[in-house]
């Protein structure tokens, strides 16, 4: 176990990659190194059964929670998606097979909602990573009041979605909204107020701004933790070799952050497909359903129109999409790593 460098490894794994066993060697660019088994710290390894039991005992509460509030509802949703379902005691629910899925795949409104979510993902995920990385690099420096800035950037993350969505709805209001006030009165960029929330793409742009603004802090904190794992000597060596700041970021910092970046991007992609509260409160899916996203569509079908079976089918489809995307991302990342 002595081979693992002490510098930064615990910090890199603590918040950055909770599911990763053993922290591993932080930067692969240091050279290939075989993965080693981590020794169980509470015993010599002579009683494997007891060891396992202890581990299960620790896992049990979390797993029970996971089972009750996640796996059981997921299973139920999958079941419901094959029925024409009403959730009332004594309701007669008819098995409709794949009808709900067929309907979803041929439903233009559902398709539109998926396109909106994909656009939202393509804008907000890179946006949060690039800006979050910038903030993390800035906050890494020993500037005065560093903690204050860290708190300020993290504040949007812990603020309620409801509050910030209503706030942004005001900011982007056509008449009397702050953004239009700045654009028209402040810098005179446009003559007429822009109807931000009155057409599809401007409304999605506003939603993206909110999504990025609210997510920067989270991305920055995770990346900041990853940055502490970048060996200082590499930076120094690169500097001695004459590399400027940007070249060092590109050739030293980013490769060292690879695992953290993969984790962050997977989480952000999943998060972007779950955009819900901001859409519901800022645009209500409007105008004319043009900014609907999969979750608002599911919600409306289920609770406004009592299409529980159809709503569940849409939800299951979205779960599959997110699952495929996440697995694909991780496989790509792994392959890139192996290819080096």
């Amino acid at each position: 176990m002595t081979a693992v460098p002490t510098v930064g490894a615990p910090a890199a794994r603590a918040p950055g990659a909770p599911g990763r066993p053993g922290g591993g060697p932080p930067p692969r660019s240091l050279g290939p190194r075989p993965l080693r088994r981590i020794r169980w710290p509470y015993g010599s390894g002579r009683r494997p059964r007891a060891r396992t039991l202890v581990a299960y005992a620790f896992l049990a509460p979390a797993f029970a929670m996971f089972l009750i509030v996640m796996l059981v509802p997921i299973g139920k949703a999958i079941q419901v998606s094959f029925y024409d379902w009403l959730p009332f005691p004594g309701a007669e629910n008819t098995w409709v097979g794949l009808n709900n899925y067929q309907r979803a795949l041929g439903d233009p409104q559902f398709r539109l909602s998926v396109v909106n979510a994909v656009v939202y993902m393509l804008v907000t995920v890179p946006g949060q990573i690039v800006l979050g990385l910038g903030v993390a690099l800035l906050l890494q420096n020993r500037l005065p009041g560093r903690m204050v800035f860290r708190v300020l950037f993290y504040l949007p993350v812990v603020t309620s979605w409801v509050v910030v969505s209503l706030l942004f709805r005001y900011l982007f209001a056509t008449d009397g909204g702050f953004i239009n006030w700045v654009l028209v009165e402040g810098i005179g960029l446009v003559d007429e107020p822009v109807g931000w929330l009155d057409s599809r793409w401007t409304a999605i742009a506003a939603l993206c701004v909110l999504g990025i603004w609210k997510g920067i802090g989270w991305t920055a904190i995770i990346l900041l933790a990853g940055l502490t794992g970048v060996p200082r000597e590499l930076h120094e060596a690169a500097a001695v070799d004459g590399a400027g700041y940007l070249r060092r970021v590109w050739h030293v910092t980013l490769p060292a952050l690879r695992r953290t970046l993969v984790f962050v991007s997977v989480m952000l992609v999943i998060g972007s497909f779950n955009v819900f509260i901001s859409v519901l409160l800022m645009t209500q899916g409007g105008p004319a359903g043009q900014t609907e996203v999969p979750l608002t569509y599911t919600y409306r079908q289920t609770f406004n129109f009592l299409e529980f079976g159809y709503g569940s089918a849409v939800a299951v489809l979205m779960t599959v999409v997110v699952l495929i995307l996440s697995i694909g991302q991780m496989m790509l990342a792994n392959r890139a790593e192996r290819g080096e």
Partner: protein
Amino acid sequence: MNSVPRRRGRLVSASLAVVTSLALVGCAGEEPSSTDGELTGTITFWHAYGADSKEIETLRNVIIPGFEAKHPGTDVQDVAVPYDQLHQKMITAAAGGDLPDVMRADIIWVPEAAKLGLLERLDTEMPDFAALAAKVFPGTLETNKYQDGYYGLPLDTNTRILMYNADALAAAGVSAPPATFDELRDLADKLTGKDIYAFADNGLSGWNVLPWIWSAGGDITDPTYTKATGYLNSPESVAGVTLLFDLFQASQMPNIVLGGTGGVPTSDGLATGKYATILDGPWMYPIFEASHPDFELQVGQVPAGPGGSVSVVGGEDVVVFRGSRNKALALEFTRYLLSEEAQLEFAKIGQMSVLRDLDVVSVNPTYRPFVEQLRTAKPRPPVPAWPKIDDLLQRRLQAAFRGEMSVQEALDAAAEEIDALLAQG
């Protein structure tokens, strides 16, 4: 940052929490009422009165104490739920078997809830139903009907009338509100270039467009609510929608009609002179008083077309849920809400009575134009599929207003889809 399963887990745990708390509330109502007709025990009453509204004050300080004084030993617990959430909360509670005893429901929810089997059928359950039904306006009673039974009783009624800003009209050199379709078009032309919209509305659902369709002589379905084709897409109906479409095309109507949330709400626009006219209900008086105390609201009837001046009926019904454990008390409370005493108290603070013989205008003179408009006003079709019908009508019309199809094409398509929904019953 939530994964898909976590989101769903949250919904479930949230609904579990709701259900648990409701179960606790529900327990209070389990005390059996005595068998000799004596009323005791507790019932729960859900409604959507606003948190600090005068309605809720009256309910809690006058109505409920008044009922409890008449029936010592009883307890009515009211629960205020925001209007937007009440329908969903009813569905969630039904799934968990934790509905309240009595609810004040929007008239458009009653047929759906009756179809789902959630409601007590009142015309068979109440021996005095016929007497109660005879006291109310027939149009308001109809909203409680599903198939052959009545599943509620009307509680309050309202309708939309024309509200206008006199200063905005003066800017066009007009002194009287537009009384006909032509006068509205005329007003709109005179206001062009003056930065004032002639008319504003915030959507194209039934509540928004039906006054124009009916006033134009059109309709949404046949009188028995079995068919929309031939009615919703008739030349008259198309003409009614086309009036709005033309105003919108000529920028005489703001684009909040498309459902965007960025624009100025109709009430603010009217009070600040951005919008010359809107259609709205009696609840607007206290709202204008609070948010725009200097604005002098002027009102008139819905502009008349070939079909006359026909507005849309809104309002609420009282329903008793089948799962109520204290049905006797629930029914008695329903009776009390329809009593002259209770209806008068509500009439004082902006809730129009459904009782035919109650002189609400002398209680509150602002009701006069509404009472007049109600003489011809029609209800939206009281069918279980109405929420879906309403949504697809709005979507089709918004597509037309966005220029994707003509008004005729939109109404043809909507009528065909509505036919299918009506056929499902």
